[in-house]
């Protein structure tokens, strides 16, 4: 399909079209000019030859006079015919029923020619005999009267002259016309190629620049050459790219400002929160001794302080990703052991169906693996339904961990957004138990693991029997790309 399209682009491309147009123009012009001059030259050549032949015949016939014997004998006709024949042609003399010929070649006298000659005019005609062109000239021999009128004597003379030399000249003309046409076609093609190059280079440059711009290189600019329409396009392109670069830069600046603001706020909140936590811990311990509502309030404050701390920690974590300062602390990890530890620490070891084949060793960041697995399993408990299963598999390149639950699964609408920050699957629920950043942090953590062209992924899907399935894939050997985003 692509091959076909590129072939079609080649065939119908600007270069081919220019080439065709130029060639057509050249050929048409040459054809018109060359054929016009060819036909004119042919007419002139033939006319001259005919006029000269008629003149020669008239001169020869003037020597036949005075005529002293009518009717002539066959002998006299023969003599006359011989006298009028020469290298260039031969004569036919006709008197009533008699006929004498200066050559054995048959003479193709046409009825219309004889008619015109019979009417008392010199007449000639070009005929073709055996593929050879002949000129036939005919005239009566008339007798003068002293008063200037003439009477037909009954003698008719026809002269046959072959037009082979003229044919040769005309053929030469035609050959030259074809040659000229060929040369002009060649010239047209050369010119077309030249002008196509002149037009196509800026177009190709423009295409390349547009592609670079599309790939995100906003500093791309074109060199503006000349003052034609293409230069205009190049200038417009440069202006557009400039505007785009400015606006994108502005947006990026605003975004990074916003992120820095969040990071700053989180950091600023940490110190007072630490103090608050210390206070609420004390309160929490005393809550049982406090009477009624006061105890409940103390527990509530303690709980919310913990949530707030969690939120601030998550915000700090995600702002590290955003600023590109997140680093991997790589270690050779027994993945099964690490996952088991995660589940055990959080007290989930008994509630999770773990399928963890031993001796899968990978080089990755154990803390981030712990964060991801804890988030996924915690989410499964919160939003899905038990039993929750964790399955580990590995091949030489990848380590894959699947966390599945038996809940209702993910809405197709939700699935595209589960890794968005503060995304609430259930809009009616205004307050989530988590910070709303867990899955986003997990996703960033997964992507932080990379090796060569391989990059960690976290994908949300629905299992064959309905529950949500989160699949984490990490490169088995991760190298620290150093905070690359």
């Amino acid at each position, binding site marked *: 399909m692509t091959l076909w399209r590129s072939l079609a682009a080649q065939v*119908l491309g600007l270069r081919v*079209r220019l080439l*065709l*147009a130029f060639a*057509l123009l050249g*050929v048409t012009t040459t*054809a*018109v000019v060359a*054929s016009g001059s060819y*036909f004119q030259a*042919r007419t002139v050549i*033939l006319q001259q030859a*005919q006029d000269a032949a*008629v003149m020669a015949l*008239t001169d020869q*016939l*003037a020597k*036949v*006079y*005075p*005529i*002293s*014997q*009518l*009717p002539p*004998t066959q002998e006299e006709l023969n003599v006359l015919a011989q006298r009028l024949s020469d290298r260039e042609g031969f004569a036919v003399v006709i008197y*009533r029923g008699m006929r004498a010929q200066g050559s054995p070649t048959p003479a193709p006298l046409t009825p*219309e*020619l004889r008619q*015109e000659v019979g009417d*008392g*005019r*010199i*007449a*000639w*005609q*070009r*005929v*073709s005999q055996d593929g050879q*062109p002949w000129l036939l000239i005919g*005239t*009566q*021999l*008339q*007798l*003068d*009267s*002293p*008063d200037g*009128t*003439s*009477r*037909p*004597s*009954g003698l008719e*003379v026809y002269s046959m002259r072959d*037009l082979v030399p003229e*044919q040769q000249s005309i*053929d030469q003309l*035609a050959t030259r016309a074809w040659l000229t046409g060929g040369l002009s076609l060649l010239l047209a093609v050369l010119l077309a190629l030249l002008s196509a190059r002149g037009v196509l280079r800026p177009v190709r440059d423009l295409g390349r620049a547009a592609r670079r711009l599309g790939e995100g290189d906003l500093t791309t600019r074109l060199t503006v050459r000349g003052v034609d329409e293409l230069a205009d396009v190049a200038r417009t392109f440069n202006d557009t790219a400039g505007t785009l670069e400015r606006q994108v830069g502005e947006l990026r600046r605003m975004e990074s400002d916003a992120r820095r603001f969040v990071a700053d706020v989180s950091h600023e909140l940490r110190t007072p929160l630490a103090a608050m936590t210390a206070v609420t811990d004390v309160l929490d311990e005393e809550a049982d001794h406090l009477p009624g509502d006061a105890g409940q309030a103390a527990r509530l404050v303690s709980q919310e302080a913990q949530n707030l701390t969690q939120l601030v920690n998550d915000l700090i974590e995600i702002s590290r990703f955003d600023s590109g300062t997140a680093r991997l602390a790589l270690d050779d990890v027994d993945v099964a052991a690490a996952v088991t530890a995660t589940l055990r620490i959080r007290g989930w070891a008994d509630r999770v169906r773990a399928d963890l084949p031993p001796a899968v060793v990978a080089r990755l960041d154990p803390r981030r693996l712990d964060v991801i697995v804890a988030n996924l399993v915690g989410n499964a408990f919160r939003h899905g339904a038990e039993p929750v299963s964790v399955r580990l598999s590995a091949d030489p390149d990848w380590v894959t961990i699947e966390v599945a639950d038996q809940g209702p699964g993910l809405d197709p609408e939700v699935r595209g957004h589960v890794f968005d920050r503060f995304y609430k699957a259930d809009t009616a629920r205004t307050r989530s138990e988590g910070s709303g950043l867990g899955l986003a942090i997990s996703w960033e953590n997964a992507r932080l693991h990379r090796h060569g062209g391989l990059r960690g992924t976290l994908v949300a899907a629905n299992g064959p029997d309905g529950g949500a399935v989160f699949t984490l894939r990490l490169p088995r050997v991760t190298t620290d790309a150093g905070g690359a985003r």
Partner: protein
Amino acid sequence: MTGRRTGRALLAGGLLLGTLLASGCGVRPSPVITGRSAVSGPAQGVRLYLVAQGELVLVLRRPTVDDTPSEALARLAAGPQQDERSQGLTSEVPTGFTAVVEVTPTTVGSGDLTVRMTGTARALSPTAIDQVICTAVDAAAQAGRVGSLAPVTIVGSDGAQPARRCPAR
């Protein structure tokens, strides 16, 4: 769209080229072309008009010392010679025919011709009358006395025939 336009241009170019080629290379046959009037020149001898297949035929005889129109008519009355007969020429003028030619000059070089014959003019066939008229007018014209298109009146014992011109051209 562009393809169709290119196609149309190609078609037009091809048609043009085809038309040019169809009109032919080399030397083509032509219709009859006519020039000026036929070659003409002087003749020596006496012009008589004989008949072949009902048409007047001009013959030339050797000139004699006395080539008057009357003499020419006398030679016409004598009939075709041996070689003329052998080519199928005849004469409808009776052998006893004798006549005198008179010129009625109006101006020099143009005038009316009168042929006074013995016997009845009505006895002559129309062809014979044409023979007489043409022979007489040609002889008179050779002598420079009338134009060759002058009208000729034949007068016999039975009166004058209407004036006619020689039909041979």
